[in-house]
C-alpha cells in the first residue's frame, strides 16, 4: 500500500485511463480493419475504412489518449509509465476472447500472470527519477 501512496492520484488515474483507452482502440480498430473487403487497390481499402463510423471513433480515442498521455509523461518517468500500460494486453486478450471469439489458451493465461508480476515490480518503485516538468 505504501507504494500506491507515493504515486500521485493524478498519475494513477491517467494510467488507468490510458489502459482503458488502449483497450478500446485495439478492439475497435481490429473490428474496423476486419470489415474492409479484400481488394487490390489501397485507395479502395482506405475509402472503405474512412466510411466506417468506428474508424472515426478510433481517431477520437487516439486524440484523447494523446492529451492524457502527455499529462502522465509530464509527471512520471517514461520507463515507469509505459511498461504499466502493458496491463491493457490483459484486457485486450480477455475481451478479444469474449467479443471477437478468439481462442485464449492456458499458456496465454500463464503469460498474463507474468505480465501482472512485471507491472507489479515496476509499480513498486519510484515513479519519477529525473527532474520532471520544467516550468
Amino acid at each position, binding site marked *: 500500500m505504501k507504494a500506491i501512496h507515493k504515486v500521485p492520484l493524478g498519475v494513477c488515474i491517467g494510467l488507468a485511463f490510458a489502459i482503458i483507452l488502449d483497450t478500446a482502440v*485495439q*478492439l475497435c*480498430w*481490429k473490428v474496423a*480493419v*476486419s470489415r*474492409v473487403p479484400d481488394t487490390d487497390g489501397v485507395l479502395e481499402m482506405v475509402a472503405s*475504412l474512412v466510411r466506417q463510423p468506428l474508424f472515426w471513433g478510433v481517431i477520437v480515442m*487516439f486524440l484523447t489518449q*494523446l492529451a492524457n*498521455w*502527455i*499529462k502522465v*509523461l*509530464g509527471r512520471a*518517468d*517514461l*520507463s*515507469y509509465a*509505459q*511498461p504499466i500500460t*502493458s496491463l491493457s*494486453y490483459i484486457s*485486450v*486478450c480477455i475481451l*478479444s*476472447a469474449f467479443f*471477437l471469439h*478468439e481462442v*485464449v*489458451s*492456458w*499458456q*496465454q493465461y*500463464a*503469460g*498474463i*500472470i*507474468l*505480465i*501482472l*508480476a*512485471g*507491472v*507489479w*515490480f*515496476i509499480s*513498486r*518503485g*519510484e515513479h519519477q*527519477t*529525473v*527532474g*520532471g*516538468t*520544467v*516550468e
Partner: protein
Amino acid sequence: MNHRLLGVAFVLCSTLLEAIGQLSLKSSATASDGSRRKFTWFAAGVGCLALEAVVWSCVLRLLEVSIAFPMSSLTFVVVTLLSALYLRERVNRQRWLGVGLILGGTAMVGLG
C-alpha cells in the same frame, strides 16, 4: 510470403516507431511550456505514432489481435533502454525485472 512472417516483420517495424514516438512525446512533456522545442518534439512524436498506425493496420489484417498486440511488448525493452540512455532515468534492477517479466509474459501470450 507467409502471412505470419510478414505480420511479424510489420510488428518489429511498428515497435521501433512506437519507441521513437514515445521518447519524443516524453521530451515534449518535460520541455518548458510554449517553447519551440516542446512543439517540435510533439510533432515528431505524433508523426511517428501516425506512421505506426498505418503499419499497425497492416499487422491487424495479417495476425489475430490477441497475438499481434502482445508481440509489440518488445517496445518496453527498447523504450526502457532509451529512457535510461537518453532521458537519464534511473532504471533500477526492479524496473528491468518488471520489463523482463512483461516480455516473457507477452511472448507466452503471443505464442500460446
